[in-house]
């Protein structure tokens, strides 16, 4: 039997145990309301536990995961910054959390005002004209933006534009979203400086090109110096520029996508504006666009009419609805609070200190580590881990050993164009002491790699479990608990 600390809630279940959450139902047989043939024959095998067991089980589990509140978490491209406690308290106010989405606009003027203002704030930060808050995550924002581009081209009769160009350093969601929007994807090479290879771009640009999807700053943590020229090239060819806003934390208040030529982009509120990642979601991926794309934004739109706010559905060119209701409103509330806290100066300072921390950390660990495309970085930088190969060490080993030092590893093996890479984004929230301690750990791990590679191969040594057999998990997938059926003994 598994130790209580490793048991599933199902294994702690004992018949007849219960919590006191709900009152008893009335003793009326259900078939008085619903025909017997629709009723369940066997109840679902849900756990039966008391409230303390429930609480202790999930509190214990929470302690088996790293989090920003407990650990430095320098995941590149994820912007793991501090999630202010006040924003959680605000989002839990009944005046926000206990709103039913079918309430008419007159009953929720505070909520609609908040959404309308947030749309304006994001438009200003992006240098764009209009915003929708509806997409539930960055990937959904990408799809929304691409569908808007397609609708715009289609309306002009340009139905042959069915290709999207994507730099080879891009997130996997970019090509996946393009395919879903009905586009064929062509990859554009990066040049030796980590920017877009203009020659390759021009070679692939054609009358069939609908858009370029670019991440700027890129996933290498570099600002694309030729961005204006790139946008011009696309526009001259009748195509549009979509920007993946994953890395907006580096440039908010410094430069604006709308000002350097981008037509449509998404924000990741869970990155730039600190809505908590929650163990992998919920996210929120608002889309901002220039005036010419506004008619295609999803419905409903939150609009202001006089001093009242309302929801507008009647928009004939809209691509339609991408999610039920109005998006992840709870995340909008946190984002609004975050922007109101920071104001124009605070947001700009976030960018400045995110970039300062990244450059400082880079200076502390390279050398001895090798930075890919080594020049001044923005909010993150990428280490090329391939020199460690000659010691028999892979980046995965370094990452696992970092856990023993109490650090969550950086993003590994992404972007795909740098071998054995580690992508490091410290964010503006961290102290210099934390950055120093991380750099020291990295340096020590490098020494360990030379002295005792086995120590790394076996890492981690201090976690609740040792390294996992992930191959087995994929080969014989077990994605649910199967209770052991006890055979009743004859009386």
């Amino acid at each position: 039997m598994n130790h209580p600390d490793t048991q599933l809630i199902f294994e702690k279940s004992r018949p007849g145990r219960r919590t006191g959450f709900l009152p008893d139902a009335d003793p009326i047989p259900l078939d008085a309301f619903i025909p017997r043939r629709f009723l369940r024959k066997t109840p679902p095998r849900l756990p039966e536990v008391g409230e303390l067991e429930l609480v202790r089980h999930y509190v214990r589990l929470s302690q088996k995961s790293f989090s920003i509140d407990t650990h430095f978490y320098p995941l590149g491209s994820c912007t793991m910054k501090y999630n202010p406690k006040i924003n959680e308290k605000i989002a839990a106010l009944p005046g926000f959390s206990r709103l039913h989405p079918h309430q008419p606009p007159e009953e929720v003027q505070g909520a609609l005002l908040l959404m309308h203002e947030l749309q304006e704030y994001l438009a200003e930060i992006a240098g764009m004209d209009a915003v929708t808050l509806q997409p539930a995550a960055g990937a959904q924002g990408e799809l929304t933006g691409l569908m808007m581009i397609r609708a715009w081209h289609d309306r002009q009769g340009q139905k042959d534009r069915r290709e999207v160009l994507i730099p080879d350093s891009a997130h996997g969601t970019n090509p996946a979203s393009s395919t879903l929007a009905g586009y064929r994807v062509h990859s554009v090479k990066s040049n030796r400086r980590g920017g877009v290879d203009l020659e390759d771009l021009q070679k692939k640009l054609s009358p069939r090109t609908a858009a370029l999807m670019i991440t700027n700053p890129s996933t290498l943590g570099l600002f694309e110096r030729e961005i204006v020229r790139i946008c011009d090239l696309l526009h001259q060819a009748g195509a549009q520029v979509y920007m993946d806003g994953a890395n907006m934390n580096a440039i908010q208040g410094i430069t604006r996508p709308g000002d350097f030529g981008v037509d449509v982009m998404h924000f990741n509120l869970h990155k730039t504006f600190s809505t908590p990642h929650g163990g992998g979601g919920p996210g929120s991926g608002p889309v901002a666009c220039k005036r010419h794309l506004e008619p295609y934004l999803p419905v409903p739109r939150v609009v202001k009419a006089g001093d009242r706010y309302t929801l507008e559905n009647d928009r004939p060119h809209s691509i339609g609805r991408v999610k039920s209701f109005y998006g992840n409103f709870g995340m909008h509330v946190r984002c609004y609070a975050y922007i109101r806290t920071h104001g124009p100066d605070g947001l700009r300072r976030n960018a400045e200190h995110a970039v300062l921390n990244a450059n400082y950390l880079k200076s502390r660990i390279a050398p001895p580590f090798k930075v890919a495309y080594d020049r001044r970085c923005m909010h993150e930088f990428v280490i090329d881990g391939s020199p460690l190969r000659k010691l028999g060490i892979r980046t995965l080993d370094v990452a696992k050993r970092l856990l023993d030092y109490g650090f969550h590893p950086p993003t590994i093996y992404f972007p795909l164009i740098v071998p054995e890479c580690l992508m490091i984004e410290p964010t503006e929230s961290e102290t210099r002491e934390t950055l120093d301690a991380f750099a020291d750990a990295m340096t020590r791990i490098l020494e360990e790699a030379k002295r005792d590679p086995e120590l790394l191969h076996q890492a981690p040594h201090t976690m609740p479990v040792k390294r996992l057999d992930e191959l087995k998990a994929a080969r014989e997938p077990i994605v649910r608990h199967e209770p052991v059926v006890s055979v009743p003994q004859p009386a």
Partner: protein
Amino acid sequence: MDYIPNAPDDVASMLSAVGASSLDELFAGIPENIRLKRPLRLPQGFSEQELWAHMVELSARNLTTDSHRCFLGGGAYAHFIPAAVEQVAGRGEWVTSYTPYQAEASQGSLQAIFEYQTLICELTGLDVANASHYDGSTALAEAVAMSLDASERTRVVLSSAVNPQYRAVLRTLFRHSGLEVVELQAPDGATATDGVADLAAQAAAVVVQSPNYFGVVEDLAEFAKAAHAGGALAIASVNPVCLGILESPGACEIDIAVGDAQPFGIETSYGGPWCGFMAAKKHLIRRMPGRMVGQTVDASGRRAFCLTLQAREQHIRREKASSNICTNQALMALRATLTLSGLGREGVRRMATTCVQRAHELEKELAALPGVRRPHSAPFFHEFVIQTPMPVPEFAEKLARRGFLAGVDLQRDYPHLPRAVLLCATERNTRQDVQALAAAAAEILQEKA
């Protein structure tokens, strides 16, 4: 205000370490002509104290399901949320962690998702579940995508009694894929089954919702039979609460069940964030989108959990992926896990039973009022439709003035149901609430007459 710890001394020494003379110089890589030369036009920053006061004021401009007695449904449900769920799910360790890519440092998150997947399988009576979707609408669209992927067909047969918003999302997300949608009518509230098997013969899937948008319990077994007769998959969108008492989709031979776990411990929060779920028969596992947690062992042979079957996902397959989903709704799934585990098998049955009882009490009271008509007679779960002589917005406004949130208007989506209101009751509504709403409705309709 901001949350930056760097003091002026830190900045000076860090700048010197990187060889820059100012913070501004760090941005030299951005061409001068595209730098923003002015501050962003945003309101000046707040201290926490000022922010709190502002947000409390803003929140007070909304009516809530606490300030009023709520009888709204239509895809979002106000249920009781236990304190233990709020407190435990609100812990920073849960709230501020990231996707569990580093399994050894994420066993807590991974085990919780594994338990969530198991709970969803148990409720739906199906074999496998994934780690969650944005919401029920996108989960349904992904299920349809799976069916298209699994067949060479481009048609789906879709009940018109599926949540209109879900159908709208489906239309948007498949705009460019040549999907042909054939809609089934629901004259008596239940979707008509005649001819479905014939339609299914050219369809990738037959899609129904139970309880449907009118609250009516659909005959899932009948639809599954018709779908399979035509070689199509059977997809059901279900309110998971009803599965405490109604036959599971799996037992009805449904292939893919989707829905939203919002009723289990997740705030209505004006429409999100919620928790779309998906469960399916075993043979569909490699076609399922999204994150999935699997059980394995660690190097010393102990049970452990990790993200698995990632070869399906966009970060590996890129343009060849059949879905672009990247995140799941882990924190929301955790709330559902806590709620379901706390309710247990008896609690979920109790919750569902009370919903049925309250809704039927309410229906009986309202249907007896003069001028009120019930367009449907089919069995229902915890929602039902009435037609009154009064336009719905007016009816709803008068109820709001008497302290009730009620009146989902069906006319926009179902023009054949003029002045039709969708009402819902849950365990949060007491018998006194039900009687009070009936009395208020009687008064309002009498004034009108």
